[in-house]
């Protein structure tokens, strides 16, 4: 009898732990705990604003030594609008069509708001959705030096979540978009500016003068990215790499 009681107690504790942990998990599959898009955005902005405000108060907000590239939110918005609409199966059985985009680069987050519609498979019923995403991966292409941006999910809102099925469909849609769905839709975004890894001095070829072209190799790397004032601020470290010099001959 005592053994039964002990087993029952252990099972009860185990059940409690499982239930508790499931609810504590802040995963999109937990609809009650999923924070609203606005809340997720504010939390992230606050996190970034602390760093920005501290840097500004120290006078180091734009403390750069090499190159600073400043990209206006309107450009990113226009580039994304140029490829609208975007349509595809994003995983989890969802099909998403994005046909509008707005960009707002303020207070620490390069927010990209994608609006469209989600359907479950080929069903005609679905829901208008808004995907809150952020430009948060910025790098230079190692060959061309072109500035490249990646977009990641902050949260998803569905106007009519019930139309997307049961069991936390918005959570499942968010998960699908997070794990490859959004990159399928939006993919990589190039900004039309590059920082090349060399400085080229052109050749001279004339009757009396012949000098070969020369490349001064540079090391380049995105050092950090800040977002405020409607702009993306990309800090790029640029330095000359040492190299021997060639010879030139001048015939006077």
């Amino acid at each position, binding site marked *: 009898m005592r053994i039964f009681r002990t087993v029952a107690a252990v099972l009860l504790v185990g059940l409690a732990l499982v239930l508790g942990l499931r609810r504590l998990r802040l995963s999109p599959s937990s609809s009650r705990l999923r924070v609203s898009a606005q809340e997720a955005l504010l939390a992230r902005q606050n996190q970034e604003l602390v760093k920005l405000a501290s840097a500004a108060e120290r006078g180091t907000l734009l403390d750069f030594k090499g190159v600073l590239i400043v990209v206006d939110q309107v450009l990113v918005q226009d580039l994304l609008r140029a490829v609208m609409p975007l349509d595809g199966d994003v995983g989890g059985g969802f099909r998403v069509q994005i046909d509008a985009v707005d960009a707002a680069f303020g207070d620490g987050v390069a927010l990209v708001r994608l609006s469209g519609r989600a359907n479950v498979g080929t069903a005609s019923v679905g829901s208008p959705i808004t995907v809150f995403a952020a430009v948060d991966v910025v790098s230079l292409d190692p060959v061309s030096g072109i500035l490249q941006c990646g977009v990641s999910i902050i949260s998803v809102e569905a106007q009519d979540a019930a139309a997307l099925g049961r069991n936390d469909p918005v959570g499942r849609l968010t998960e699908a978009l997070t794990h490859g769905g959004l990159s399928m839709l939006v993919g990589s975004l190039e900004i039309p500016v590059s920082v090349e890894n060399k400085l080229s001095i052109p050749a001279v070829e004339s009757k009396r003068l012949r000098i070969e072209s020369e490349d001064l190799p540079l090391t380049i790397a995105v050092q950090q990215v800040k977002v405020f004032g409607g702009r993306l601020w990309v800090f790029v470290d640029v330095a*000359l790499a040492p190299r021997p010099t060639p010879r030139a001959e001048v015939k006077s």
Partner: protein
Amino acid sequence: MNRGRIALALGVLASAGCAAKGPDSATRMARLKASYDHLHDRLEKAAATEPLVSSAFATRGQVVVAIRSGLIEELAGNVARRYLDHVKVDLSGFETEKDGEIEQKTFLGKLSLGEWRVAVDLGGLVGDLRAGSPRVGLRAPDLIDIELPVDVRQTEGAATLRFSWDSSGLAKLVCKDFELTRDIHGRVLPQRHVLAGALRLANDGENLTATPEFPDRHVQLKLDLTDASWATVEEALRSQNTSGKCGMLMKPDKGVALLKDLAARGISVSLPKKMFRTVTLPARMHESVKVNKRRVRVALTAQKLRIDGATLWSSVALHVQPTAGPAIVAREPDREARKR
């Protein structure tokens, strides 16, 4: 004991429920909003006092590129050095010459006895230039000032001396004209020159260029002969110092001094303008980019370029062109994408 275990289980269940709920959404939002307002206010006030931030916001265009003076000066200095470093100036065909008249006072006044002419062909001589460390500084609105020291290394090579005498007037009756040629060995003396100029920065929308402006590209190369060659010159002049040749009128010592003066003054070599080449800075704009594997065209219009304190600001207005073609139909993410 059992009661205790059951109580613990119920406690865990209860705490899981409580933790899940926490403060209600409205309260959380209110706290976050209050915090946001405070932080935003702090950022705005502090940013307004930063000159770089003000400068950036004052620059129009969808893409602004700012380059710090330290980097520009380093790049410009290296480019300028490359213009003139390890440059060999071939002096073949260069000839330095001097001529003059010898007159004699007579009771009739000054009479011309004749004209002399000395020329040195620098056939085998080479000027070997090495650039030193330049002094570089930014000058608003768009210039990079450069003072480039150029060291000329000592080099030696073959040269040819030609000396001629052309008698005139009464002297013609007693003096023969003569011309002598001697192979000699000359040298370019070690010396330092400073070339002053600038690189003018420009923004054509796509590229940021630096165009050299060196109005005075002359280098005065000082020359000399080897001791043996001076002896040869002196001996040559002395050999003409006989009656009937009138070399005596042109004293050998005087002739050598004349040549030394000529060499010391050197020859002026003008470095070709083409050596000073326009370079494109490594930050560039592009008329076409890929957005999710689709090519998007962008029209570029150059905006301002200016040097403001220790920073070069350059900006471009971009107009994204409408994209033709079908929309991307994305496929369901594959397993790899899902793993990522």
